[in-house]
């Protein structure tokens, strides 16, 4: 399989003890959900894919993205987008500057500003570019974080319990929004969660990790 995200015989150990092992292919537009209790190494797996695994861990196996081996690529060159349970907007930038930070280089200033404004409008936040992110509601922040990530034009999307801080009604809205945008861009999605509802809404294969 060429397109998509592929984890090939990935095995992560910590201090010599095996934490998890996994071999999965995620096709474009599909979601793979990893479930399991906390401490089982879900976030560690995502760190391996983003290239930010801590020094305590050792990993073997390969990560392939659209046919390229990115196992040893530096984090900034991987084109793997990630959303955490906190929005983690840069607090010192305006909403617009947050989006501009991730927007792929190229185009004139006017074109770039237009792209940012269009992205905001796409999630119902037209005119929010100059706002302080701290003044946004939880749902608004989540939408800005999503668009910031999408403007960097990633080739895969990682979700680290991204909905767990939102309340119930907001949660399903944001979840639908994220999944529909990922589908529209044909992104392979790797979701880790301990929430069964998230897993069901993903409509994809579910892998349960158990403590070893």
């Amino acid at each position: 399989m060429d397109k998509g995200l592929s984890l090939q015989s990935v095995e992560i150990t910590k201090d010599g003890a095996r934490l998890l092992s996994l071999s999965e292919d995620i096709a474009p537009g599909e979601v793979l959900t990893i479930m399991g209790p906390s401490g089982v190494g879900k976030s560690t797996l995502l760190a391996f894919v983003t290239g930010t695994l801590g020094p305590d861990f050792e990993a073997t196996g390969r990560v392939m993205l659209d046919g390229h081996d990115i196992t040893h690529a530096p984090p900034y060159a991987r084109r793997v987008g990630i959303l955490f349970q906190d929005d983690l907007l840069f607090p010192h930038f305006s909403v617009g500057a947050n989006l501009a930070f991730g927007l792929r280089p190229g185009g004139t200033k006017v074109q770039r500003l237009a792209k940012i404004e269009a992205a905001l409008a796409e999630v119902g936040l037209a005119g929010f570019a100059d706002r302080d992110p701290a003044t946004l509601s939880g749902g608004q922040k989540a939408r800005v974080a999503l668009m910031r990530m999408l403007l960097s034009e990633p080739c895969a999307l990682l979700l680290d319990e991204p909905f767990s801080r939102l309340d119930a009604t907001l949660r399903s809205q944001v979840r639908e929004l994220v999944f529909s945008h990922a589908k529209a861009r044909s992104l392979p999605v790797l979701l880790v969660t301990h929430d069964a509802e998230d897993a069901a809404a993903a409509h994809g294969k579910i892998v349960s990790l158990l403590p070893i």
Partner: protein
Amino acid sequence: MKTRRALPFLPVLTLIVMLGPVLAGLLGTVLPAFGHLPAAGLTGPTLAPFEALFAWVGLLRAVWLSVAVGVVTTVFALALVALITAGWSGTWVYRILERALSPLLSVPHAAAAFGFAFLISPSGWVSRAVSPALTGWDRPPDLLIVQDAWGMSMMAGLIIKEVPFLMLIMMASLGQIDTKRSAAIFQALGYGRVTGWLKTIFPLVYAQIRLPVYVVLAYGMSVVDVAVILGPNTPPTLSVQIVKWMSDPDLAMRLQAAAAALLQLSLVLGVLMFWRVGERVVGQLGAMWIATGSLGKSDTIVRVSALGAGVLGALMIALGLASLAVWSVAGYWGFPDFLPDQFTMRNWDRHAVGTMSALGETAIIALTVVLVALALTVGCLEAEYRYDLRVSSRGMWLLYLPLLVPQTAFLPGLQTLMLTVGADVGRAPVMFAHLVFVFPYVFLALADPFRAWDSRIGTIAAALGARPDRILWQVRLPMLLGPILTAVAVGIAVSVGQYLPTLLIGGGRIETLTTEAVALASAGDRRAIGVYGLMQTAAALIPFALALAVPAIIWRKRRGLRHG
């Protein structure tokens, strides 16, 4: 790309820059101590310098003073800080104390000592306040209060200045210990606040603040500027005597000074070892005390008196500064009047040229040194983050080493060494010497906030395609603007307060606010001291005010950063 290759080596370079002068200075002390000083045409080895040192009549008393001042100051300051924290941590009182710390801490030692002297001297504010109503004095009594032969005013002055320092260290270490739950448990078991805290939390806290306590101990044993202002004269402390011998026109006196510097070093090492043994003994006694199960019935009295003593100390610093301010604008001021007859700007006018040039020198040195220290600190911390380098506890010892080795033990040697190799004294060497003392403080001030930065933000930025340098400059450093400016302010305060490095390495030719102020001590011109002391305090205090104000202005439209 060049920085990427240089960055991993920065921690090692920093160690060399920091420890190099200390080691070179110690070497430069050992040689002349054994009679080897080619610059003066003397070659050793000989024990003559030590023989001359031991023949000095004042030696025993000077040694005794140094040890007593160091130990008494540290015991009192540590006990006070422990009892205040035991009695009040987690309350609104403690939060107020927390706010008052930074300004108290940034007041230079020399200015605080002058202010303290102005309060307690026979013609000082305290005496004026109660005279003649309570005392019947219409002339200042003939008492030797300041510079008393026992060094008690010096100890008191040091204690009130060290309490804020240990308090800050204590507060920082509390954040790393789960104190709330321990407190809930010992209170449920029926223990009083103070007793319960001392039995359960203090041992944990002490393990964390051990190095800063050693710094206070070594500092108290070897401090020069405070000893010149508040300490006895006949004889002075060993460190002051070393400086006197170093400034003797007779080069041969340097040999004796070097021998005394080695003695000073071994004294500090000896007392530190003695202190370590004392830690064990206190630990044993503490275990026995814990085993008795006493719950602490007099806790309330203890916590109220500890707080009272702490507040009194803070008040002494504040009133001392106020006293400097009044003297700086005083016209005729007879005893026992509480305030001068006239207020005048004449003192300021008279010293305008002198203070301005000293301020310029102080600022050039402080800003240069702090910028270098900041660059090294950020470089070391970023190298640690990018390459997963960990600072071991041995690394922390190295960081504290320049603060533990007494200044009088290696600065004379450094000066002699520079003389021997023909290096010119002057501003640049003074800056290098300041860096040795400024770097550890800047590093300690910035390390915790830098490491506490949420690394997921770095992961997000990298996932958005940002390279490490861009993440550092556009995300991490701007987000840490507040802590960075605070570290800068700490560094400036440390540089502004440096007396001995400026005096010795500058060869007496570099005149900063501190060297000028301390030089005034013997002349006793209170109006001049008031002017210089206030300028010195302002030079240390204003950067702290800016460190608070600047981020608040720059980030006024960024609520997420306002209290971080």
